[in-house]
């Protein structure tokens, strides 16, 4: 396998927009191409993550439109990847594998989404399509509902009184808003308090409004190439050291999903390929679609023992400057969650952090960063490990 690096990265501001999904992606991709000091004709393939474009704009087969919008030639491979909220990470991992194998030399990978425009009712319905449509969705289960049940499962299993757990969950939101306030591309650039979270209306017991990430629009993209090409075009290539992907079926078959085998397997692949362990990771951009999700994933990725991550949050260990900086960008919670673009925005942040370009939210001395993206009910999990040294 060839050594693979990321050159330029690009991202739109997240939040409600009047741009189309094609425009959002093209803007992010052109920024990434320009930052790579290459021409659009150098791009051989375009891998596009997109979750719900069909429902958002009545638009299928988005990848070709994106390639054409960017002026890529007819011989360009353009493909959409769908893995619900992990779509862009699936696209990026596939770009990595195909560049590593020698099939392509330069690939633009990322994603786009315009979820905000659907409105709450249709958005809630379509987001729930990531749940088993035969055996689970007819209960009226929503995406917040999945994580609400996880919070009750977690509190009961580890004997943490629910009010205590809810306070620690609120601290996840407070931290991510604090980081997001320093990110000019974040949907919410405003700090909140634990009281703000605990005063919000209940979405699905015990999750309140500020336990949940928003519906968002946005695009993000990265240029993936070989070590040799990257060194010729950019000063600081960022290397993809490891990549993993796992899968799972219905929630009811996963049973106690405080432990997610698909996530554990995905992370294990990524760690093994990179030759590192959880202790070597300085920062991570992770899938905090809900506050409890961040707590549970910290344990599944091996950063904390099972049942202990909420206490670590309370102690401030996951803040910028703490033991491991979690979601320095503001995460899905504050930066926003345009489903199909989310994984690419996570990679965008880690690349910028490793290059020391994050200003007020910069994680000092970060050498290795990780991304974690969850699609559906852990049906698709992708982990990437990035570093500035090969």
């Amino acid at each position, binding site marked *: 396998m060839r050594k693979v690096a990321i050159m330029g990265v690009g991202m739109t501001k997240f939040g409600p927009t009047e741009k189309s999904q094609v425009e959002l992606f093209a803007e992010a991709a052109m920024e990434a191409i320009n930052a790579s000091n290459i021409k659009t004709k150098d791009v051989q393939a375009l891998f596009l993550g997109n979750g719900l474009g069909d429902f958002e704009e009545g638009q299928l087969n988005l990848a070709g439109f994106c390639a054409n919008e960017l002026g890529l030639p007819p011989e360009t491979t353009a493909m959409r990847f769908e893995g619900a909220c992990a779509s862009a990470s699936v696209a990026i991992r596939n770009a990595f594998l195909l560049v590593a194998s020698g099939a392509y030399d330069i690939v633009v990978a990322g994603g786009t989404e315009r979820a905000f425009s659907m409105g*709450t*009712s*249709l958005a*809630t*319905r379509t987001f*729930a*399509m990531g749940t*088993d*449509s*035969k*055996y*689970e*969705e*007819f*209960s*009226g*289960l*929503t995406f*917040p*509902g999945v994580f*609400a*049940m*996880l919070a*009750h*499962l977690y*509190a*009961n299993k580890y004997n943490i009184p*629910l009010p205590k757990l809810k306070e620690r969950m609120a601290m996840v939101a407070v931290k991510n808003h604090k980081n997001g306030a320093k990110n000019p591309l974040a949907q919410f650039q405003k700090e909140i308090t634990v009281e703000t979270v605990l005063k919000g*209306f*209940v*979405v*699905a*017991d*015990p*999750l309140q409004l500020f336990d949940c990430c928003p519906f968002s629009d946005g695009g993000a993209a990265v240029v993936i190439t070989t070590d040799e090409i990257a060194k010729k075009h950019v000063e600081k290539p960022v290397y993809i050291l490891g990549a993993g992907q796992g899968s799972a*079926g*219905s*929630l*009811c*078959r996963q*049973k*106690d999903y405080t432990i997610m085998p698909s996530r554990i397997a995905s992370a294990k692949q990524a760690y093994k390929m990179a030759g590192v362990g959880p202790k070597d990771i300085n920062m991570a951009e992770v899938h905090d679609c809900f506050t409890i999700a961040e707590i549970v994933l910290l344990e599944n990725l091996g950063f904390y023992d099972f049942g202990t991550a909420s206490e670590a949050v309370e102690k401030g260990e996951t803040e910028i400057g703490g033991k491991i900086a979690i979601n320095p960008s503001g995460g899905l919670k504050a930066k926003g969650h345009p489903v199909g673009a989310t994984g690419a925005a996570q990679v965008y942040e880690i690349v910028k952090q490793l290059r020391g370009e994050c200003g007020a939210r910069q994680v000092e001395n970060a050498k290795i960063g990780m991304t974690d993206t969850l699609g559906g009910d852990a049906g698709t999990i992708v982990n990437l490990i990035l570093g500035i040294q090969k």
Partner: protein
Amino acid sequence: MYKLTYKQYFEALKEGKLLGLKCNDCGSYTAPPKLCCDKCGSTNNEVVTLSGKGVIKTFTVIRVAPEGYDAPYIVAMAELEEGPWLMGNIANVDPDKAKMDNIIGKKVTVGAKVLPKMNYTPDEGVTPAFIIAE
């Protein structure tokens, strides 16, 4: 190839019968059904009627509903006596009175609720409806 399709499972559930698969190789039960044993992957399974008894493991009250549903309502997961977990609704508890201590760990029997065909569904739907024992 299929011993029990989702449609056959739904039809039985509507009539109060909870069907599942019993694996002839490892002895474990799979419900709701799929092509192979959920534990060992064997396709050497037989269709069996399950007891329809279980215990609630977790729940939520949905307060922001998707298109086609009216909030509030309870969604829960129950562990059946035979081992599998099922996702369903809790039929006989007021959503506003549902708390961890009066739901989690409670014994239930499995009934069924039928939903009409909606947008993006191929047909009517059937979901387990758990009844908490008095």
